[in-house]
């Protein structure tokens, strides 16, 4: 059983109320929290509650969340898990000196029989990719991964991860559960121009493309494709429709979302773009994105090999797809919604998933669907 509780008020009292309802239910051995940034939960208001929970609790604060066919900008969703999750916190997710693989090995000495790992990270931490690589280097395909970046669209880093220790920031929360899952990943963005060679980059900052300031190349392509010019104030408005795509053979391109241009013409992206990589500039439309969300659902259902019976769908969808699709985002939810299967989800700052078949990735502007065994 996956008892789902929802509070639409977004208040601490509302959160406390549904939390008590969830943990008082028989067989609930752990709790997953999806909360909206607009709730404005702060450590000083929720830490006492979290520290007094007698069972493991984990989750995140997201720009928006999903319940059924509805996208919520305020509110909290709690999911009661009948299987006790093994929750581990990886702190200091921006520290360049840390070897996350060794920390993961210490925290998970036995990968055991856990089938699914929820991976929630502070979306503003600087070494998310290093954590993702370390997770795959340690666990490989032994577990299915599902999660994403937490935080606020204000682009201000703040405590956004729920744990039994309180609301924390600049960390990752890894929760392994013995619950079968099938994961589907798809984005629907397609190339409008490229390839371009990333000649200089520093983690998530593209410094130069073809040895020219990254923005000069990007600007030329986007202004031509969009028939619109960049001004001092409209970068994100225009750039949200033209992400970068990193190529790989035998798989969809990995999308990288440019969110800021620096004074030196460098482009700041959500997620790393390695130097010496080739990128395309992509675009999409409502049809391609909605179709991709449906494809992610199909892939997740095909990949689900759990016991027949009740399931739940968890949609991890990038908040930038909401910004791109606007009102038509409801079509994306509709593409994933199944009449007889509960749907919850989070609109994230980057998505973390693997299809159970190839390398674990940190995605941007991508729809990830997890079909979970509801036990």
């Amino acid at each position, binding site marked *: 059983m996956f008892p789902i509780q929802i509070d639409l008020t977004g208040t601490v009292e509302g959160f406390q109320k549904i939390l008590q309802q969830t943990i008082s239910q028989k067989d609930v051995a752990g709790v997953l929290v999806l909360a909206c940034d607009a709730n404005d939960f702060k450590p000083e208001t929720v830490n006492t509650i979290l520290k007094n929970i007698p069972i493991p609790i984990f989750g995140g604060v997201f720009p928006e969340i999903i319940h059924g066919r509805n996208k919520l900008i305020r509110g909290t969703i709690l999911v009661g898990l009948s299987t006790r999750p093994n929750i581990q916190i990886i702190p200091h997710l921006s520290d360049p000196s840390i070897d996350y693989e060794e920390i993961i090995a210490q925290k998970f000495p036995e990968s055991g029989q856990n089938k699914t790992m929820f991976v929630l990270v502070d979306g503003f931490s600087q070494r998310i990719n290093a954590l993702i690589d370390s997770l795959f*280097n340690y666990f*490989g*395909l032994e577990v299915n991964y599902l999660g994403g970046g937490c935080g606020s669209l204000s682009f201000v880093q703040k405590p956004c991860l729920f744990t039994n220790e309180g609301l924390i920031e600049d960390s990752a929360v890894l929760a392994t559960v013995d619950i079968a899952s099938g994961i589907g990943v798809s984005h629907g963005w397609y190339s409008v121009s490229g390839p371009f060679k990333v000649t200089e980059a520093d983690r998530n900052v593209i410094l130069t493309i073809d040895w020219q300031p990254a923005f000069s190349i990007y600007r030329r392509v986007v202004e031509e494709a969009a028939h619109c010019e960049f001004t001092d104030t409209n970068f994100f408005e225009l750039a949200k429709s033209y992400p970068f795509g990193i*190529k790989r*053979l035998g798989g969809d391109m990995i999308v990288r979302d440019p969110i800021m241009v620096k004074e030196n013409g460098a482009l700041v992206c959500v997620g790393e773009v390695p130097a010496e990589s080739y990128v395309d500039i992509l675009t999409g439309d409502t049809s391609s994105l909605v179709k991709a969300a449906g494809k992610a659902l199909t892939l997740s259902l095909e990949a689900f090999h759990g016991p027949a019976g009740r399931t739940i769908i968890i949609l991890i969808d990038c908040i930038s797809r909401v910004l791109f699709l606007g009102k038509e985002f409801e079509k994306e939810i509709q593409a994933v919604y199944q009449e007889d299967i509960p749907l919850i989800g989070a609109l994230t700052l980057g998505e973390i998933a693997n299809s159970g*078949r*190839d390398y674990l*990735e940190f995605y941007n502007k991508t729809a990830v669907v997890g079909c979970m065994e509801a036990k």
Partner: protein
Amino acid sequence: MSNTIEQLQVLYEIAMSIGLSLDLRSMLKNSLAVLLKKLSCSAGGVLLFQPHPISSPALHDLQEIHFEEVFTIPRSITHNKAYQAAIRHVPKTIPADRLGVFFQQLPLSGQEDPGSFFYILELPDIGLLILTKYGEGLDPIILKSLKPLSNKLASACKACLQNTALRESEENYRSIFENVQDVYLETRIDGTIIEVSPSIEFISKGQYKKADLIGKSIYEFYTDIKDRGGLIEVMQKTGSVTDFEVSFKNRDASIIFCSISAKMLLNSESQQEKIIGSIHDITDRKQAEDALRESTDYLENLLSFANAPIMV
């Protein structure tokens, strides 16, 4: 199916990721991760010859070789059926003279289950690369194109192993250099000291440290500078000296008797460049010899009076 330009881009990116470190684990971690990501592979591993030809005799001199798994992504790969199927195709040990026959079969590919592929590629003269992939198999053109990349990966592995061997050798020599009781010394032909081992502190009874001597002239320390002239003269004739006895002045003006074993080093133009050698403190031996000589002289004196009555 990807187009040729996409394939070239991806192969270029993989090539650029290989060999960025001289630490084997670090180099493989980066290279293999990029290789797996770019080819949408699910796992990979590198197996190297044991004993490997870097630290052992040349490959053709080895009797038998086995493959040792030195790095995999993911770390624990026992549950990856395709990888384990690949491992079953790798002989546990193989006579060195049969290695060529085994390598002729490579690249070897197969399927454990439908849609679960494995590939075994040669890392020339050093080992094997194993890749696994779900879904569609690797494009045959890509598989062939991986050969130059596996060659590059093999070279990078060799460089790492050579670096490790060199570092171990350096550490070994450093340890000897720092712990030997004799003094290791390098001087220019003009006598300027350019290297001296820390054991100078021991031989000088704590009166000189290495830093006191670097850059000084060795002539300052000879009790008789003719010794240096004699040493150079012999070395110019024979290129080296063995147990050449000299004496040095300590800081407190006491004399240290030494024997020098040294050789002249020439530069690439066959000009004398420097002298390297070791200095062994023979002061105790000299004192014992002097005592013995005095004793002998004393006895000889006594014997010279043997025909006369000896009063004791």
